[in-house]
């Protein structure tokens, strides 16, 4: 079922958290709300499930306006960051709770709980209490409880934040599998770009209560609209060089690096610019040689990561296949793929 936020705003008292947000999540789509902590992701999610009432604007599920419906009537499943399991109930009672309050017959509940528990692989834990489960198991219980009523919408608030790295990897594919199997419309709230990129059909990236850009993960990576988006996606992150426009080229410092760029035609000379260079676009391939000194080197197994200081003091990051001939302190002359760089104006907008 499609979810539509129409000029949604939310304030707590006089503090405005979200203003005039428009967002559409297609039916059966999984969308990531990605942004730094405190940007209003949870607030948005809580408005969708009805825990918070919007200050203004509308929320639609399909064509139904649910803005003023209490959460009980919205048929949403929510996985909370802390899981919010009921500590006094067994796993079975926790998962069956949404059916129990609907007064479904006990035998029916038992059967449906068994089915959904099998789907999330916790069939053998039904008699336990949450305190007797590990984080990953609690996570699955929360997921099962969110899914058991066959909700129209599944909302996940940082569902993996409390898991260790290995488990996070497993659950990432697990949640995506369940979402695809059930065909449910889902919103995933996260501050982890890897999670957003690997699990979701599209990403809405948020900053201070505003959606900066919505796109598929690969589009957003290849074509960030602002320097904020560019810096948020990618690991290791993008590096920026501060420079000026000069006759259609990006110039770094006095007599420094000079990169002619198509995007800069028509830009007045002297305009302050910021050039984003992803680590994979500086190193072996590319046509512009750049000189500098290696100050940091780190191997990540398959690849090596280097920080290179340019003569003007700015730093470029480089990721390359493993090699042993470069050590910190060495002077290098590596190529930069200028066609893959992004230029941003001083306000962060892409040019």
């Amino acid at each position, binding site marked *: 079922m499609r979810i539509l936020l129409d000029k949604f705003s939310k304030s707590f008292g006089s503090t405005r958290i979200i203003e005039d947000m428009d967002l559409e999540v297609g039916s059966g789509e999984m969308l990531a709300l990605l942004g730094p902590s405190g940007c209003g992701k949870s607030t948005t999610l*809580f408005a969708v*499930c*009805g*825990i918070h009432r919007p200050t203004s604007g509308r929320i639609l599920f399909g064509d139904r306006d649910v803005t003023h419906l*209490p*959460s*009980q009537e*919205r048929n*949403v*499943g*929510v996985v*909370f*960051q*802390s899981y*919010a*399991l*009921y*500590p*006094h*109930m067994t796993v079975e009672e926790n998962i069956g*709770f*949404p059916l*129990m*309050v*609907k007064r479904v017959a006990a035998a029916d509940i038992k059967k449906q709980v068994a089915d959904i528990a099998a789907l999330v692989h916790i069939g053998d834990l039904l008699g*336990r*209490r949450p*305190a*007797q*489960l*590990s984080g*990953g198991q609690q996570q699955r219980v929360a997921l099962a*409880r969110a899914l058991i*009523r066959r909700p129209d919408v599944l909302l996940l608030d940082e569902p993996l934040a409390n898991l260790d790295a290995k488990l996070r990897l497993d659950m990432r594919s697990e949640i995506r599998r369940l979402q695809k199997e059930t065909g449910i419309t889902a919103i995933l709230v996260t501050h982890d770009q890897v999670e957003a990129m690997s699990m979701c059909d599209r990403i809405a990236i948020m900053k201070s209560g505003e959606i900066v850009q919505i796109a598929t993960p690969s589009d957003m990576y290849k074509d960030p609209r602002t320097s904020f988006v560019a810096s948020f996606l990618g690991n290791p992150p993008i590096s920026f060089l501060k420079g000026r426009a000069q006759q259609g080229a990006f110039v770094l410092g006095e007599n420094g690096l000079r990169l002619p760029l198509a995007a800069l035609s028509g830009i007045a000379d002297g305009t302050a610019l910021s050039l984003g260079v992803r680590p994979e676009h500086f190193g072996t391939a590319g046509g512009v040689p750049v000189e500098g000194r290696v100050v940091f080197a780190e191997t990540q197994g398959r690849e090596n990561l280097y920080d290179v200081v340019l003569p003007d003091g700015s730093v470029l990051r480089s990721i390359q296949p493993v090699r042993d001939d470069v050590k910190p302190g060495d002077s290098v002359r590596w190529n930069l793929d200028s066609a893959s760089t992004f230029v941003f104006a001083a306000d962060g907008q892409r040019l």
Partner: protein
Amino acid sequence: MIAPAAIMIFLFFLMPVVLTAIFAMTNMSTATGISGGAWQVTQGAINRLKADMPDLAGGIAEPRFVIDEEGLAALEALKIKAGFSIELRTSHMGEVFPSRREAERMIKALKDRPSTREVKQISDLFNRSVLNTRFENRDGLMASLNKLGFTLTPAEQETVAAATYTGWVWTTENFKIIGNSPDMAQIFLNTAFYVSVTLLLFNVSYALFLAITTHYMPASTASIFRAIWLLPRITPVVIYVLMWKWLTWDSGFISMFMGQFGYPVKNYLLDSAYNAWFFVILINGFIGASMGMLVFSSAIKAIPQTQFHASEVDGASRWQQVRHVILPQLRWPILFVTCYQTLSLLASFNEILLSTRGGPGRATEVWSLAAYHTALNNYTGNLEYGLGAAMALVLVVVGIVLSLIYLRIFRYDTLISKPLIED
């Protein structure tokens, strides 16, 4: 490090119970005193003896006259006719007369013919009655009785000693009295009624109601409500009860209000047992509810907010939220409040003492108040410490037994079960 704590526990927690138990096994009262006593043939002692030894009881109740050296010496000191003492010594030494009449007949018959006044004077000197004489030890009493011609077997001596002893003795009589007296049974029922109704209606149910309703209110409104409900608890009890009296007595608010509708003026607090209970339970309930409210409120606050959010999106109504999320997690606080309030309702009687004094009649007399009246304050003035202590001891035992039952009912063991985590 542990020694000071142990001493404090012993002095202030164990000692009172131990002392109560010790007192409970005695018949101490104002009459016996709490130190040792003496042996004295009082009218009461004679009454006690009548059942087992009617002859002796009749005998020692009467005066006895014995012609002995002590009396003769006193007679000589009087310096009346020397012939009296000489004749008494030679022909009557050691004679015992069971009554004054017989003794005086013998004295009248003396050769020197004493005047009527002298007969009286002389007979008084030989009066050896034990009635109302205090003996500081048991042997003194026995020796006197022996001298009077009562020869007693050791078993009989034992009975006489027990009946005439004025100090306290060890006894289990108190518990028999408690077990058999219909008054005690009535007081027991009063107590059970008072404790269970106040506890269920106010200390738990009403407190839960307040805690839950304030939980769903905006924070500022909730704190105003809680503050109002704390007032009875923080008002000094004398003033608090006084306000209830203003409300209920003859010239009080209720009387005046009902007077508007033509009802006669009356004391609504004490006019019937029904009314007295009604107000006693309200007075105590309003005080008791505030504690439960605080305990339950903070326990509800301790439930993570996301559980309420989760249950809302899971489709639970307010009532279902209360029933399935809040109440099950209040099991331990409810147990605590129930236990604590049962004990405090059982033990405290100040509000009742200050309001109805157990009246009208003894309609609102509860166990602890009865113990207080028995041991420390009553109209007859004979304070029965022993019986009062026995009543207090019963209260302690009832309290312990009830606590154990509560722990079972609330399945304390499951509250403290260990987690079992594996990855």
